[in-house]
């Protein structure tokens, strides 16, 4: 068992022992620790013996590095809480999301109603909890539609080059230079209000960024020797793109998607606010703010509370995205 590079040593050997020679530190630690380190050493091995070991090791490294950055931990926790809240909404929410209680309308925040009640006496806290399901659905659907769409368009453009590339990238560039929000608004106006159409409209406006990334990544690896080897072995373009090129785009794609999620949440909330997204009585956060507008001067909590939920969740994605970028793509640190 050998401790490899010094970066590995950093993780394994407790810092007071460093500098006295890594081997020494290794043996002076106790038995139990040694066992623990065996698992770690297996994860961090310089020459993994299986594909599974390699990817497990990489995940472990990314994870430990993420844990060192308090902000990305916070971001991760926020996203985790969002997932749990959405999954457990029926058990967490003290009241129904739509149940009206006109006797208790527009009550300020209190022990019974943590965030107060709205104009129909509905508990705002419960509505915010239920609303997390809608937000999560929108975010996931947009990511699931636009990221693969962008990936494929970019990979195809980069792989084939020539006219295919010119045309696909021309379209991408046109989309990129148009205002996203306005375009989404126009699409929703044409398709009709509602969550599904909002998701489609947002996805239509957000794929071009992914296409650019995928194309750039594809160009850097298109002429790599192992790609030529696959071609020589008779691998067709579809097999090449799906099995060999797309997997290499995933890390930059994950960063970008995570960072973009904050924007998606804001756009979705904006559509809801204007009245083109989720329709009442659905407890969508943007639509809730819109309802609270009327009361903003006297009953401030109706409009303010859902806003805090939006901010916290968006920040969570920002923090996590920033952290992921620092770990997976240290070169681009600090750039927009």
């Amino acid at each position, binding site marked *: 068992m050998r401790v490899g590079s010094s970066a590995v040593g*950093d993780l394994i050997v407790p*810092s007071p022992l*460093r*500098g006295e020679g890594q081997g020494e530190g290794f043996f002076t630690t106790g038995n139990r620790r040694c066992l623990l380190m065996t698992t770690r050493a297996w994860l961090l091995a310089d020459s993994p013996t299986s594909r599974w070991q390699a990817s497990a090791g990489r995940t472990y490294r990314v994870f430990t590095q993420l844990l060192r950055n308090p902000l990305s931990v916070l971001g991760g926790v926020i996203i985790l809480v969002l997932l749990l809240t959405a999954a457990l909404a029926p058990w967490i929410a003290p009241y129904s999301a739509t149940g009206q209680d006109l006797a208790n309308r527009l009550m300020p925040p209190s022990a019974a109603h943590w965030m107060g009640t709205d104009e129909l006496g509905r508990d705002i806290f419960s509505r915010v909890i239920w609303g997390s399901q809608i937000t999560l659905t929108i975010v996931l659907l947009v990511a699931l539609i636009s990221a693969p769409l962008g990936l494929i368009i970019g990979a195809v453009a980069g792989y084939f080059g020539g006219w295919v590339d010119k045309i696909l990238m021309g379209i991408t560039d046109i989309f990129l230079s148009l205002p996203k929000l306005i375009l989404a608004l126009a699409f929703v106006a044409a398709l009709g209000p509602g969550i599904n159409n909002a998701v489609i409209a947002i996805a239509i406006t957000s794929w071009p960024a992914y296409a650019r990334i995928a194309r750039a990544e594809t160009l850097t690896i298109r002429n790599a020797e192992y790609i030529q080897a696959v071609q020589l072995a008779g691998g067709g373009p579809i097999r090449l793109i799906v099995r060999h090129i797309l997997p290499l785009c995933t890390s930059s794609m994950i960063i970008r998607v995570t960072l973009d999620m904050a924007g998606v949440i804001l756009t979705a909330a904006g559509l809801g606010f204007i009245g083109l997204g989720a329709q009442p009585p659905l407890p969508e956060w943007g639509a809730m703010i819109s309802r609270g507008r009327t009361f903003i001067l006297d009953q401030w909590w109706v409009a303010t509370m859902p806003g805090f939920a939006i901010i916290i969740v968006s920040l969570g994605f920002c923090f996590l995205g920033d952290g992921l970028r620092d770990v997976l793509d240290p070169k681009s640190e600090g750039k927009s």
Partner: protein
Amino acid sequence: MTPLLAVEDLRVSFPTHSGRVEVVKGISFTLGRERLGIVGESGSGKSMTGRSILKLIRKPGLVTADRMEFDGIDLTALSEHQMRAIRGARISMVMQDPKFSLNPVMTVGEQIAEALLTHQKLARKDVHQRVIAMLEAVRINDPERVAKLYPHEVSGGMGQRVMIAMMLIPEPELLIADEPTSALDVSVQAQVLDIIDELVRNKGMGLILISHDLALVSRYCDRILVMNAGTIVEECAAGELANAQHPYTRGLLAAMPTIDEAREELPVLDRTQWAGT
């Protein structure tokens, strides 16, 4: 006579994950109006030594010294403000690569003039004349035209001469040249060093020439310090280099090819000989 520069127990350290790491570990030397060479491999702390004399080590880095006196002035006690009056005007530094060390959006002339105007109030016409004269002194033909060029429009060798002009125009007493030729074509290296040498001798300045190149340092310097891993392992007159005692210096010398080379393979440094020190 007091020396121009006296350094005692200079230490430079940087924080890392595993505590502070010293890159210069307590070195001492003095310098008169002479040419001192500091040689060593990358990471030996020679550049850090040069920069700490100008107190240019930025924040997380820490510089301490029992004594660091320049012309009787205690540099360690000077404030940032007082230090600025020394930088450029009395101690100056030529840096490695003109591609990076010249401001890309200021003309060559503006940058040289700035070095002068930072320390002296002069009329515009006088400044222009001094700049042109200085460019001539570093052997640039057609200085009027070159003064109007941007750094990306001049070659590496000319860029480095511009750098020298900029650093010498306020007439400092000590010049630190930190690898002044290692980014240049071999063909212009000697020209640049000759210019430095000539100007330094004519003005009776002190010179610290920092380099990894033993042959070059022994040619242009009077005295040589050999640095390794943050300490000075050898100090000798340039002519005495062949008689160096320390195994590191001997190793470096042995690794230099000569013109009538008969060896199949150049020896590799055997670090175990001095690792204990």
